[in-house]
């Protein structure tokens, strides 16, 4: 439990910490998105924190919330042995305006982690020198891990041939697979004419 660490951060940045909680042994701090980089710098450089590794940086899309995206960073201190999870919320419900400071100047692992977060969610990292797609091809449109990106959508670079009588069954066609649970995580009946499929 890194309670002492959380207290240290709260003392140093009283206005930046919005929430804290501790679940299953993980300590989490929810920060104001504007204080992201300064808190991270403090955690890296301060000898009481000594968080010298950014273990992981990712995004979670809470599509009904505002702000919509939660940027989640896991930090580890190899010398002191404690871990911390930092979170910051960005973006409006349409997915625009999701921007946060880049941590590449503090930890080099942020480079690829932020590129993937950008690729998958569309969150921009201000100050990242090379923010381009990493897992998807450059011509890809959309941000695949967002909740409203349909899982069965395909964007082939080379379109399928039109052969009469052959049904090219796309992966996860309408009558294939099992849509488990009662929840729907993507719009299911898209009307191409209707910009507001309700």
């Amino acid at each position, binding site marked *: 439990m890194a309670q002492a660490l959380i207290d240290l951060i709260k003392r140093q940045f009283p206005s930046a910490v919005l929430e804290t909680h501790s679940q299953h042994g993980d300590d989490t701090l929810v920060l104001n998105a504007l204080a992201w980089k300064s808190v991270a710098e403090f955690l890296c450089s301060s000898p009481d924190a000594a968080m010298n590794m950014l273990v992981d940086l990712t995004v979670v899309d809470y599509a009904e919330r505002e702000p919509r995206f939660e940027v989640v960073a896991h930090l580890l201190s190899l010398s002191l042995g404690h871990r911390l999870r930092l979170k910051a919320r960005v973006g409006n419900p349409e997915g625009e305006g999701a921007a946060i400071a880049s941590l590449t100047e503090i930890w080099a692992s942020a480079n690829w982690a932020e590129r993937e977060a950008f690729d998958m969610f569309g969150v921009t990292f201000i100050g990242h020198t090379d923010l381009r797609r990493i897992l998807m091809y450059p011509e890809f449109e959309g941000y695949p891990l967002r909740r409203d990106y349909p899982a069965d959508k395909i964007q082939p670079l080379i379109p399928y041939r039109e052969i009469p009588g052959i049904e090219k069954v796309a992966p996860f066609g*309408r009558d*294939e697979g*099992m849509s*488990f649970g009662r929840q*729907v995580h993507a719009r299911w*009946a898209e009307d191409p004419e209707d*910009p507001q*499929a*309700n």
Partner: protein
Amino acid sequence: MSTFKLDGREIPFEKGDTIIRAAHRAGVDVPHYCWHPGLSVAANCRMCLVEVAPPAGRPALMLDVLRWDAAKNEYVAEKKPKLVPACQQGVADGMDVLSQTSEHVKRARAAVQELLLLNHPVDCPICDQAGECRLQDYWLEHQGTKKRMHDEPVHKPKGQVFGPTIVYDAERCIVCTRCVRVSEELAGDPVLSVAERGNLNEIVVSPGRQLDHNYTLMTEHVCPVGALTSSDFRFKARVWFLRSVRSVCVGCSKGCNSYTDFDPRSLQVHRYRPRDNANVNKYWMCDVGMLDYRRIHEGRILEARTSGESTTRESALTRAAALLAGAGGKLALVLSAEHSNEDNAALFTLGTKYLGALAVFYTGRPQGKADGILLEADRNPNTTGVLSICPTAKPIAELGQAVAAGQVAFALALGSAVPEDATASALSGLQGLVVAATHEGTLPQAAHVVLAASSWAEAAGTFINSAGIEQVSERAIPPLGESSPAWKLFAQLGQKLGHPTSWKRPEQIQANAGSAASEVSA
């Protein structure tokens, strides 16, 4: 504000409330089978037993019980407090009720659940209730233990046809008597009753009768297990594949709130379920409405027609535009009480503002018989809505006179059915009739151009019921076949005639009309 404590949480209550009703209002769930907010209290399932702390200074009512002590390998005498059913116990100010926080209550619930499952058949793979079954949910939440009985379970008749809509399975029945109370209290027809005694209890239909009143599907709806199944929905779809939207029934002008359940893979609507609305239909829907979902897929016009021949929407629109262009001042509009406010407003705007129609009529389905409970005589969902869009609209029966008098020679109509057969001859007297219709009927039969319109399940729509309440019905499936929402069709028709009818969303129709917009309430 009088409150009582439930598991330490203060919950307000009204005079005459029982614990479970006050908790239900506050959104707290006390597990139950036989209680229903819209029915009388039976208190026979004993699942809602809770522990009520005695008033200050009074001792708790304790019962002598024997508890199996595994360490001593014998029964030991113990006392436990008497638990009360939450559905029957009235609430008093300051009462302290323990539900989840009491060990006795937890043991009681596990025991009740175990007893209910003792003779229950292993039917989950074939039972329609699977996925929305209380026995399944409560087993996981409250019991979690295995079967302790090694005897043969009691066998009872299965697959009994109670009536044209309901099939009964006595082995699955937990005799909560919800169905008995629905028949008696809601439908006013006490045709079901409980027969036999003890663990041979089953529900029977009165001799010489069938379960055939207008609320039989409500007995299936309230049944918490798979004992009563709808023969219409049986074996059609598994409920976890179905998605629901909040809709409004269009069977009559009552406007009961419903859920439309459809399979998103095949985009087929499989059933309706009632949705609670204290102001309109409380918790219920009648059979006529429940089975009305069939009309979404049956008898539909899915392709445009000109002169009875199927054609593309484009060519039908072109032909319709040509017809209407030569209408002069003899154009009449026919609104439809079957269609939503959006469809009718689009037609009204196009007709009056741009095409100069002078005469406005309205049509709908013929009247039926009201049953005095929910079903109303007016079998159209939106008569009030149509009359609010155009208060001077005349019934379509008067169209015949107008045609005969030579005032009307062309008509742009919405809808399929007409209230009387006599209208058909009037329609044949028109020189040009363009109809946007969802189903086959008198109007599209007589039309020169038929445009395929989408039904209420394929586009969101607002309906005003007979009490004047405006309700929105959400969209379930995308337009079937070549159909398109009527309000879109009218925009395209207007554009073909060179008018700036460019609305892309229903809200824009009002702005286009320039008339006072009625607020769409969710």
